[in-house]
């Protein structure tokens, strides 16, 4: 498959085998940085990953990207066949589901923003449960009065729902177009996108220095 016969070809082939073995051995996605220590210095891990991805295209297992991570997963179209009689250990409540999708589509989102979209207070244990599932994390703090904590999704969220990146969220473009992802006011103002990079301009790192300040409650209707 790798046509070169010379020494470079051998190195490449060996590197590909190592990346393949590492990814195959792990149940969780691995980042390029996780694999770099096993490869020669200066190896283009991302290049190797793309080669490997192409090699597995159309096979029963595929190499997929999940945010920064990469993993082997069974092919999507075989799902109906492999589907097992498994039940979700704890099916998500409607409140948890809505909260999850609001965080996914509006992130970074504060609790007050989630509550504004849903029109009800977030029950105890909803955010807790989503964090326990490993799908939601605390990202930082919004640089506004009260400096509320902002929430976002994790790579495990991408992995679970089979998304390469947040931009793959179903219906995202449509929602953007209709202005329904804008923060507090109707469409024409602005359209923030789900954001999973580092901290945004209006976010600070987490900081417990404002212990006394409660999160701003959103009693607004």
């Amino acid at each position, binding site marked *: 498959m790798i046509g070169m016969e010379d020494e470079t070809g051998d190195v490449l082939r060996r590197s590909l085998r190592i990346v393949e*073995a590492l990814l195959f051995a792990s149940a969780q996605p691995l980042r390029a940085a996780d694999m770099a220590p096993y490869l020669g210095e200066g190896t283009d891990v991302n290049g190797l990953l793309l080669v490997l991805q192409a090699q597995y295209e159309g096979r029963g297992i595929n190499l997929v990207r999940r945010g920064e991570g990469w993993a082997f997963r069974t092919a999507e179209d075989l799902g109906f066949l492999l589907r097992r009689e*498994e039940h979700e250990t704890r099916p998500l409540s409607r409140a948890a589901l809505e909260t999850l999708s609001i965080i996914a589509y509006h992130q970074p989102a504060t609790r007050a923003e989630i509550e504004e979209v849903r*029109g009800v207070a977030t029950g105890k244990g909803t955010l807790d449960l989503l964090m326990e599932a490993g799908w939601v994390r605390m990202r930082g703090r919004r640089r506004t009065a009260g400096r509320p904590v902002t929430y976002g999704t994790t790579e495990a969220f991408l992995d679970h729902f089979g998304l390469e990146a947040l931009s793959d969220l179903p219906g995202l473009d449509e929602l953007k177009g209709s202005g329904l992802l804008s923060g507090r006011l*109707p469409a024409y103002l602005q359209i923030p996108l789900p954001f999973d990079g580092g901290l945004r301009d209006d976010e600070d790192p987490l900081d417990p220095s404002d212990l006394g300040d409660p999160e701003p409650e959103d009693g607004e209707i």
Partner: protein
Amino acid sequence: MTQAETNWFDTPAPPPADEVLHVDVGGYEGPLDLLLDLARRQKVDLANISVLALAEQYLAFIDTVRERRIEVAADYLVMAAWLAYLKSRLMVPQAQGDDEPSGEMLAAMLQFRLKRLEAMRMAASRLMNRPRLGFQIYARGEPEPIEIARRSIWEASLYDLLKAYSSQRERGITAEYTPRLRTVWSLQDARDILQRLIGDSVEWVSLDAYLVDYLARPSERATVRASTFASSLELVRQGEIDIRQTETFGPLFMRRRRKEPR
């Protein structure tokens, strides 16, 4: 009632009116959820719903629920007040120099919020319908124990850490819980006060009128009423006073019993 009424119960098999009244407000997750449900029953695109009709339906619904003496949470009533305001803004043309937001703008805002909530619900169901890991897509079933050197051998997440910390701090607290002490009127005090207040009055006077000075503090209202009522029954038993109530939950009237000449 209004056209609205027929709309929101316009389901394939309209339930008899009796059943309709048993709609449980507790089945809704807040006023917005209820509004969205009502809007859906208009069976048109959310962009084309009649906000005025929707407001009327909501207000009618809340009225129905309250008539049935079902406890309605405060936020439903806040929404009702807001919708009543919206209704008035929509029906009365905007006066010049009126700085308040126009009815149309308020209606657009409500519509936006309903559309956004519905969009998030749809997004949630689309997410759940994706081929999910462990349901239609599988990871390596038998991962081989190869660990990446950068990772520590101990597994713990930030969530585990915070959970461990929080539960420890909470554990310490429960042991130190002390119930809030309430002011309680003793029966003896209540009896003395009642005796003094009724004095020799032979006219019917309502209990609350006697107690008006003592009912000023809301936090003590319950105990003042309960203790004086209990004491008044005792006084009736002893033939000291008469007591009368003309309707359920109506005011209690009292007077000194005339000493029957023997």
